[in-house]
C-alpha cells in the first residue's frame, strides 16, 4: 500500500494551464457558476461539447476512436481542474469515465468505432444500469434478465439510481443471461440499451432537494441486438467489477464540496482574526493534499497497468468523508448568529449538506469499502 510520489511532467502542467484558463474564461463569461457535486448535478451538453472540441474527453483513448492518446495523468489533471472549479460536467461524466474505458477494453469493433468518437466529442451520454430496487450493496442479487432470441436479446426488469437516464442516450445494463446457480456471479452479462428503444420507460426519482438526477428505468421486452452486447456473455460480473474499481479513486471522491471550501475562505478572510478558523482550514488543506497525493498515486499505478483495489477503496473511504467534513467545518466556523453577507456561501453550504448523504453511499458504501480494505490486508 505504499504509493510512489507522482511528479507531473511539464507537458501535463501545460494541459492544466489550458484547462484552468478555459475555465476562468467560461466563468467570467457566465457560462457556469461553481457548484458542489457538479459531476452529479450540473448537466450541460453545450459545456460537454466544448470540452470535446478541446480534446478533453476520451483523452487517453486511441486516436482512431476519437481519443488523444494522452496519459492517464494528463486526463487526471483535466478532471481535477474541472471539479475544483465546480464546472458542469454531469452530462459526459459516466461516458467519459466508465463506459469509454469499458468499451475500449471489452467492446466490439463496431461499438468502438461508432460510439467512442461520439463520446469524445461530447455528443453521446451514458447511464449505468447496475442497482435494482432490492440489491443495494448486494449487486450480485440483481434479477433483471435477458432472454436470447433471434438476432439479439429480450430484456426485462428494472434499474434504479441511474443518474441522468432521462437525458442520456444509452444505458450499459447488467443483467442475468442464464439462470442463477450457486455461484451468483456467474451468468451475468452487460447489454447496451438504446434509451429510445421501445419498452424503455423512465420514472424520475426526486432527491430531497427536489432535484431530479436519479431515475428508475423500466425495461419491458426491450430488444437489444447482438452487436450491443458488451464483451462476453456470462462475463458481466467481472467486467462490471473492473469498471467499479476504476471509479473509486478519482478526484470526484474528494472534490465534490471543494467549491464550498473556496467560499469558506472568502468568508473567513472578511472576518476579524479567527484562530479557530485558521487551524480548521489548515487541517482541511493538509487532508486534501494527502488525498490528492493518494489519488494521484493510484492514477500513476493505473497508468502502469496495475489495479490497486485496496488503495482505491481507501481513497474513496477517506475522500468521501472529507467531502462531508468540509461542510461540517464550514457551518461551525461561520457563526449562525452573524448574518452572512455572502449568499454564495449559504447556497454552496446548503448543497453540500443536502448532497452529503450520497457521498458515502455511491460507488460502494463505507462499510463495503472497509470490507474490501480488510480483505486487502489479509484479514477477511
Amino acid at each position, binding site marked *: *500500500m*505504499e*504509493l*510512489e*510520489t*507522482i*511528479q*507531473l511532467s511539464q507537458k501535463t*502542467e501545460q494541459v*492544466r494551464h489550458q484547462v*484552468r484558463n478555459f475555465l476562468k474564461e467560461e466563468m467570467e463569461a457566465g457560462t457556469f457558476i461553481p457548484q458542489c457535486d457538479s459531476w452529479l448535478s450540473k448537466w450541460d451538453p453545450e459545456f460537454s461539447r466544448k470540452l470535446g472540441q478541446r480534446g478533453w474527453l476520451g483523452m487517453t483513448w486511441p486516436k482512431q476512436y476519437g481519443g488523444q492518446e494522452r496519459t492517464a495523468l494528463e486526463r487526471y489533471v483535466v478532471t*481535477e*481542474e474541472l471539479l*475544483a*472549479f465546480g464546472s458542469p460536467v454531469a452530462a459526459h461524466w459516466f461516458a467519459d469515465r466508465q463506459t469509454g474505458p469499458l468499451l475500449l477494453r471489452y467492446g466490439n469493433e463496431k461499438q468502438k468505432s461508432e460510439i467512442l468518437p461520439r463520446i469524445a466529442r461530447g455528443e453521446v451520454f451514458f447511464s449505468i444500469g447496475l442497482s435494482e430496487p432490492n440489491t443495494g450493496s448486494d449487486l450480485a442479487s440483481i434479477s433483471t434478465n435477458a432472454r436470447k432470441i433471434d438476432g439479439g436479446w429480450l430484456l426485462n426488469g428494472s434499474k434504479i439510481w441511474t443518474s441522468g437516464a432521462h437525458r442520456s442516450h444509452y444505458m450499459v445494463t447488467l443483467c442475468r443471461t442464464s439462470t442463477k446457480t450457486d455461484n451468483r456471479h456467474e451468468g451475468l452479462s452487460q447489454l447496451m440499451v438504446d434509451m429510445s428503444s421501445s419498452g424503455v420507460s423512465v420514472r424520475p426519482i426526486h432527491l430531497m432537494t427536489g432535484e431530479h438526477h436519479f431515475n428508475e428505468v423500466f425495461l419491458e421486452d426491450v430488444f437489444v441486438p447482438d452487436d450491443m452486447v458488451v464483451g462476453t456473455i456470462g462475463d458481466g460480473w467481472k467486467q462490471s467489477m473492473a469498471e467499479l474499481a476504476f471509479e473509486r479513486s478519482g478526484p470526484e471522491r474528494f472534490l465534490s464540496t*471543494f467549491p464550498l*471550501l*473556496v*467560499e469558506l*475562505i*472568502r468568508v*473567513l*478572510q472578511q472576518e476579524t482574526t479567527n*484562530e479557530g*478558523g*485558521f*487551524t*480548521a*482550514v*489548515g*487541517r482541511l*488543506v*493538509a*487532508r*486534501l*493534499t*494527502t*488525498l*490528492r*497525493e*493518494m489519488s*494521484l*498515486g493510484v492514477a500513476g499505478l493505473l497508468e502502469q497497468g496495475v489495479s490497486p483495489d*485496496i*488503495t482505491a477503496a*481507501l481513497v474513496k*473511504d*477517506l475522500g468521501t468523508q472529507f467531502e462531508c467534513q468540509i461542510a461540517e467545518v464550514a457551518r461551525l466556523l461561520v457563526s449562525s448568529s452573524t448574518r452572512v453577507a455572502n449568499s454564495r456561501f449559504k447556497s454552496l453550504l446548503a448543497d453540500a449538506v443536502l448532497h452529503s448523504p450520497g457521498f458515502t453511499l455511491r460507488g460502494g458504501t463505507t*462499510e463495503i*469499502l*472497509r*470490507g474490501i*480494505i*480488510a480483505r*486487502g*490486508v*489479509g*484479514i*477477511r
Partner: protein
Amino acid sequence: MNDISQIIKETAEKIMEDLCTKQVVEDSELGILPRELWKTIVKSGMATVGVSEEAGGSGGSFADALTILRIAAKFSAPIPIAETLMANWVLSEAGLPLMEKPTTIASNNNGNKMMFIEISDGWTISGSAYDVPYARYAEAVVVIGNSQQGNMVAIVNPRACHIEHEQNLAGEARDHLYINNVHLQGEAVSRVREGNDNNLLYRGALIRAVQMTGALERILELSIAYSKERIQFGRPIAKFQAIQQQIAILAGEVSSAKTITNLAVKSFEAGNGEKQIMAAKIRVGEAASLGAPIAHQIHGAIGFTDEHSLQQSTRRLWSWRDEFGNESYWANKLGNEVLNTGPDYLWPFVTSMNSELVL
C-alpha cells in the same frame, strides 16, 4: 528507488531486526543506551548519510537518511540517530567536522535561549534548552544560537553543561540543558549557513513525521497479526466485522501518513518543502491520534502492558505528535498561509504542493 537507496534501506532493516529487540527498547527506559546498535549503525556509515562523501559523509540523499529514520522508528530504536543525522547536516553546512558519536542539538527553537558572545580569544556560549533529546547520552551537543554576528553554531562538550533528566511519554530522554559561559576557540564556532531557527523547526517536524510513519506501519502490522491470532467466541477476532472495519480505518490512516510523508520528503529534498512539511506533520499527527487508540482497542489489555511491544510504538506516536509543533500549531500556520493566499488561489496552492520535487 535507486540501488544505493535500496541497499541503505535493506541494511537498516537488517541491523534493526538483529539488534533492536523489544528487550533493547525496554532496557533503554532503564537508562541503558544500546551501544552495540549504535556502533553498528555508525560502522555502516548511517550516521552521516545525506552528507556528501567530499564533505566527509557517507553520501546518499536526505531521503535516504529519512528512510533510515523511518525504519529505526518502526523498531522504536532508542538511539539518537535522528539527532546525529540532523546535527551532521548542520555541521556540514557550517563547515565544521562531522560527528559519529551520539550527538544531539540544542537550538533557539521552542522558547529556548542560546547566546554566542565573541570575546578576545574566541567565543563564550550561554543559555538553556528544554527537551533536548538524548542529552544525557550525547557525547557532543551541537549548539545553535544568536550572536551579534547572526546565528552561530558550535560543538559543545556535554560535560561542560548542566543536564537535568526529563523524558517524554515513551521514556525517551528529553533533558533540560544549561550552558554557562562555555569558552570556545574561534575556529570551533561557525556561522549557520542560510539555515536558521525556523529551518531547524521544519527539519525537526519532518523527521518526526517520518518517524511517526514508521511507528504507524508497525502498529498496523501488529494489529493485523494480533487480530488473526487472538481467538474470542470461538474464532479469530479478525472475523468480526467490527474489528475488520476498525483495521480498515487504521490502514487508511497509515496509508495517508506514508503518502504525505513521502511528498514532504521529496519536496524537502528539492529544497522546497515548507508547506508540504506542515501538511505532513498535521496529517501524520492526526493519523497517530486516531490510529493509536484503534491499535490498542484491537489488542485489548495486553497491548498497554510492558509485556507487549505495541506500547513502545504508541507511546512514541503520542510523544512525537507533540514534538516540533503539534497538529494545531502547524494547522494554524498553514491555515494562515492559505487565508493570506486567498480563496481564488486555494486550488493553485493545493496543486503546487507536488509541483517541485526530486524523484
